[in-house]
């Protein structure tokens, strides 16, 4: 009944259909229907999922037998939350574009990308993983390059080349690992079982690490990100930040660390230091940004830095924090960018100094924006708190100073987020703000869902934590990092 491959292919069918649709209204409906259908089809997996450490709903079909490549997919507690995140966010992202005129091709690319993302999160074969990794990249390249801002060509090309060179390193590592497998295949389990010496693991570490660090992005591999977020159309920014960057974090947990634990023992500290530098560094940069998109872009670097630190510290709290925070970050960053989209569309500018006093004329937007910000800065009883609390608790195991520097995020985050809120929402209502239209219709629906998730997960995080609990504990047991 639960056919995982079908779930993966459904968005592609939608994309094929959409490629021929010219009318914007029809395209939107088809895209929404397919994305909601995909989400609906995810539910049975969630229901049937047994929250233990095993891989479930596995499908293993020989693909290129002569090279030992299999179409091998499956779900476990680590991939399922990300599959839910992907399939949950795509409909919201599509809904968020309902205020614009977009052709079928735009949505076709989005759905095509969704399949790539799902492949990444479900692949149990390294080659398939790599294929998904690139399938996800190409559509977003076109989305940004075709629908982006003034500097889109230069910025998008840089983004593409940068991330692509990272993935080439990873490809080399994957091929090398393949040559080491006695039975000559790309199976995840075969890679796990490899008995690599320490020196090899160091090389493997760097090859994977650079690819994932660029994707997330981690300091100092992040400079493509603010420019790309700024230039991309809003839906593209949401896909990049809400879902795509989780590919990098997921890659760390699923591939890098279990395959090269000795490499991690060697360089994990360095990675953690980079992540924590990124938290403080990006937060401080965010202080002075006037462009709302760029501000959120830097805040995202800070948040992802904390997630990466929680992964590299490699304990149950840190990893569980990373798992739940990946979901939380997706929710809050989409909310934030959607607010920016709504506000900047009406102001014709993303610059904060042109705004102010919107709260008075748009109380609904003021409330949801505040709740989203509170989630982002980790106020208790919002989802962000659960994630930050667990992450910081995990990071604390690496030493109190690590936790202090990583913990600065709760202070610095409040500074730039509340500054943004004040700049946009509070203060005097200027002329442009005076005619601001409050959110309604599909906008309200998107925000209602996001707010419900923010508060719901914050008050009762147990079900979500429970999904990944066994898989994470098992992983931490199996893979020992010698810090």
């Amino acid at each position, binding site marked *: 009944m639960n056919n995982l491959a079908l779930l993966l292919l459904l968005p592609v069918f939608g994309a094929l259909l959409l490629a021929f649709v010219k009318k914007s209204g029809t395209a939107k409906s088809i895209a929404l229907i397919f994305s909601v259908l995909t989400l609906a089809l995810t539910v049975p997996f969630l229901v049937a999922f047994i929250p233990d450490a095993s891989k479930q709903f596995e499908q293993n079909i020989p693909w290129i037998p002569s090279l030992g490549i299999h179409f091998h997919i499956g779900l476990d507690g680590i991939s399922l939350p990300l599959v839910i995140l992907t399939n949950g966010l795509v409909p919201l992202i599509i809904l968020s574009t309902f205020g614009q005129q977009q052709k079928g091709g735009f949505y076709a690319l989005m759905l095509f990308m969704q399949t790539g993302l799902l492949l990444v999160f479900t692949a149990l074969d390294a080659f398939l993983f790599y294929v998904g990794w690139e399938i996800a990249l190409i559509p977003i390249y076109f989305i940004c390059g075709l629908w982006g801002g003034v500097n889109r060509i230069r910025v998008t090309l840089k983004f593409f080349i940068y991330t692509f060179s990272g993935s080439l390193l990873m490809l080399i590592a994957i091929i090398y690992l393949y040559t080491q497998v006695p039975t000559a295949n790309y199976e995840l389990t075969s890679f796990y079982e490899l008995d690599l010496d320490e020196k090899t693991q160091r090389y493997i570490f760097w090859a994977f690490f650079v690819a994932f660090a660029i994707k997330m992005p981690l300091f100092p591999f992040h400079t493509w990100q603010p420019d790309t977020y700024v230039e991309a159309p809003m839906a593209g920014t949401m896909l990049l930040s809400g879902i795509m960057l989780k590919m990098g974090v997921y890659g760390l947990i699923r591939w890098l660390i279990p395959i090269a634990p000795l490499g991690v023992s060697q360089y994990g500290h360095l990675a953690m230091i980079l992540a924590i530098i990124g938290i403080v560094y990006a937060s401080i*940069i965010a202080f002075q940004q006037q462009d709302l998109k760029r501000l959120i872009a830097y805040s995202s670097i800070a948040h992802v830095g904390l997630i990466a630190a929680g992964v590299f510290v490699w304990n149950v709290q840190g990893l569980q924090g990373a798992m739940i925070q990946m979901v939380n970050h997706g929710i809050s960053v989409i909310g934030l960018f959607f607010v920016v989209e709504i506000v900047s569309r009406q102001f014709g500018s993303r610059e904060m100094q042109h705004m102010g006093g919107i709260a008075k004329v748009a109380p609904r937007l003021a409330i949801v924006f505040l709740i989203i910000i509170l989630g982002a800065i980790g106020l208790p009883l919002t989802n962000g708190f659960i994630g930050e609390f667990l992450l*910081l608790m995990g990071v604390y195991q690496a030493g109190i100073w690590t936790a202090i520097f990583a*913990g600065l995020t709760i202070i610095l985050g409040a500074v730039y987020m509340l500054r943004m809120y*004040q700049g946009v929402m509070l203060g005097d209502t200027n002329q442009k703000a005076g005619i601001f239209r409050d959110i309604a219709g599909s906008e309200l629906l998107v925000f209602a869902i996001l707010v419900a998730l923010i508060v719901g997960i914050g008050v009762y995080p147990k079900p979500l934590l429970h999904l990944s*609990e066994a898989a994470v504990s098992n992983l931490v047991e199996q893979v020992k990092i010698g810090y």
Partner: protein
Amino acid sequence: MNSLIWIVLFPLIGFAINGIGRNVLSKPIISIVGCGTILASFLLSCGAFSTVYAARKSGEIASFTQTVFEWINVGNLHISLSFLVDPLSAIMLLIVTGIGFLIHLYSTAYMKHDAGFGKFFSYLNLFIFFMLLLVLGSNYVVMFIGWEGVGLCSYLLIGFWYHRVDYASAAKKAFVMNRIGDLGFLLAIFLIFNTFGSLEFSAVLPKAAQLEVGNATLFLITLLLFIAATGKSAQIPLFTWLPDAMAGPTPVSALIHAATMVTAGIYLIVRSNIMFVLSPVTMEIIAIVGLATALLAAFIALTQNDIKKVLAYSTVSQLGYMFLGLGVGAFTGAFFHVITHAFFKALLFLGAGSVIHAMSNEQDMRMMGNLKKKLPITFATMFIGTVAIAGIPPLAGFFSKDEILAHAFGHNQLYWMLGFIGALFTAFYMFRMLFLTFYGNFRGTYEQEKHVHESPISMTLPLMVLAALSIIGGILNVPQALGGTMGLATFLQPVFDASASKLSAAHLSHSTEYILMGASAIAAIGMAIYAYITYVSKGVVPAADHENRGGLTRLSYHKLYIDELYDAIIVKPLNILSSFFFKIIDKKTIDGFVNALGQGASQSGKLIRLLQQGNVGYYIFFMVIGVIVLLAYGLFII
């Protein structure tokens, strides 16, 4: 005890109803919902209190818990949403819901003409909800939910009139400064969990009691908890947000920034008292910081002309006394002062609100004067509040402050001396406020004078209740030297049980106590007379803002330039650093390097392209070279 959850839920329900219906419901309904839910919580709290009281009477420890659900389960970390009521939290419950109710009642009239009436009540209810979580939490994490939640409500209410940019900034400042403390709290939580394997008070505190005095881990935990307390309870160096918080509506100042939220830091330390007792160094730090804050804030209050600013600095100063009390081991005394301070400071703020209300939103005392006839109830109650805070017997403040000072004397006579000087300041600036406001000539505009009127009963009734409490509050814990039975101390005894044996409180003889009490009472009265001579007999009115002030007066008037100092050493450098990181490091250095790599690649592409120009000679040339290299390679290897 299954009623505990409802104590918490009623205000949340009120928040939801008023929040959703803020534009639809009529003001009377909003008032009924807002006040009614708090009254319900108050009545349930009375029930909880009487259960605890009865249990204490029969000699039990009287500690009841209710677990609502398992909140976070990760690995060996188990955090449940659960509540604890014991003598300590039972008293806090009464303060929060009781005074909270009075202030809700007061607000129905005070906020009557405000467009954000529904919003105001929903925020106020939300505040009570979080404050109750803070008080009732049976572990550090639930307490932390409330701790941060009240910070959020404080943010919302300080920035209630957010169209004023300075108000919005004050709100942000309060939130950020509190968050600095909150990081300390979080780190303390991690350290507590690492050390004791749990976060429940009932598991942590007994284990902590097993450790020896001066334990390094305990020192760190207590230091971090104290940092948390300096944020929420406005102590040096994190106190500057509280005076700015006066931007909020006055009932908010009374409830949040005087009576309840700001005492959370004291509550936290009292709750964890055993850990502090075992860390004498932290205790000493607390005493010194508390004393310094008490003096510094009192010094600033001497010259302030905004009636709410005087009360704000007075609050900071009184909180300093409470920390002094904690630092010298007078836990009961400090908590006693929390209670009495809640009475008279809520009273004073609400009284100030009544004055401001009557004076058409005038807050500058230089524009007031001679209001005692026109606002008789406000005057009488504020007079009581002033006498109480000044420490003049037999009102409430005398007993609680005296208990702190007596312990300070036993600990270090210098502390007593400095605390005594602070008390002199307190008596002076409070009577200065009273006389400038209610005596002398009326100095406001003609319109203001015509408009001045006593507030309606819903505002004066809370004043009268609080005035009564300020008068009799002292009987809660009358010292033995005055023939009292120390009722509060007996009631709270289980909370301090483990600490009691470890505290070597220097016992003062009754005669010493009489002398100390007499000295402070006489001195306070003396300062009142001095203030009377200055501001009533001589009719002195503080100078206008632009006039030059000399020496100390200038320092006090400009709040010791601490905001300017923070701006210069923290805010400005951070902003410069931000620009530096963005422009120089990010754009020029890191991205410059990335771009250079890219350019290098495309440049080398151009070079390599030169090699492929269709000239067969070149190809042959390179082929030969290649073969030679390969051969050479093979030869060397073999």
